[in-house]
């Protein structure tokens, strides 16, 4: 697993499907401070496209990386504003 990010918090949405990975990521980001990095662990394959689209359409977040590890989809989101 990638460890190059200083992850502030990990959100586990394994086993949950659309729209939960995106919506819970949004809620978790709201609780973080600017500069913090959220790691999201998901098993929903749709989360790859959905979290990418959400990050692109949302101000104040930056999608650093998305990693696919077998059945696990890991997303790194930074709060930038």
């Amino acid at each position, binding site marked *: 697993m990638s460890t190059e990010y200083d992850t502030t918090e990990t959100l586990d949405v394994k*086993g*949950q*499907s*659309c729209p939960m990975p995106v*919506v819970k*990521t949004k*809620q978790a980001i709201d609780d973080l401070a600017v500069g913090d990095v959220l790691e999201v662990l998901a098993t929903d394959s749709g989360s790859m496209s959905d979290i990418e689209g959400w990050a692109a359409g949302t101000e104040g977040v930056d999608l650093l990386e998305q990693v696919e590890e077998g059945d696990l989809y890991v997303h790194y989101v930074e709060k930038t504003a």
Partner: protein
Amino acid sequence: MSTDNPSTAIDDGEFDAAELRALRERVDELEESIADVGTEDDDQKMTIISTKGSFDMAYPPLILASTAAAFDWEVVVFHTFWGLDILHEEKSKNLKLSAVGNPNMPVPNALAAVPGMDAMATRMMQKRIDENGTATIEELIDLSLDLGVDLQACQMTIELMDYEDDAFYEGVTTGVGAATALQHMAESDVQLLI
């Protein structure tokens, strides 16, 4: 008026002072309206009119509403007719799937019309939803309200169905009608009838 202002040089030829003043005022007005357009664009808005209360049709409005709220969009879902049952605390837990009229059902329509088949189809769907990790209707309602979605219950339908005002989830907006819905639709970037 000062003669060293470069704009007055034009005044000598084609425009008189009054025309020039009118033009400047017009430029100021246009600049102001452009500035307004810039700020209004920042807020995306969506209005969904939710009219169906069957188990399967309760999902799309709530999934879209909660996701749009995650994008920081301002979201209104106006629930009318059978869509109102989604906001009814008791009824929302007992929404049924219709086995009739859906050619994707594993049973023929003639059989699907037999009493008890709707309940069976609903149980099958509920099981799939649980196994798939799909959220329940109640979870999606709580989530939507948490994220600031305005879930509105059509007042006319409340009276038509003879529902009590306190039968709905806490946070649901009551006392609204078609004019309110239209007003939100007119201001929205996305309008959907589900």
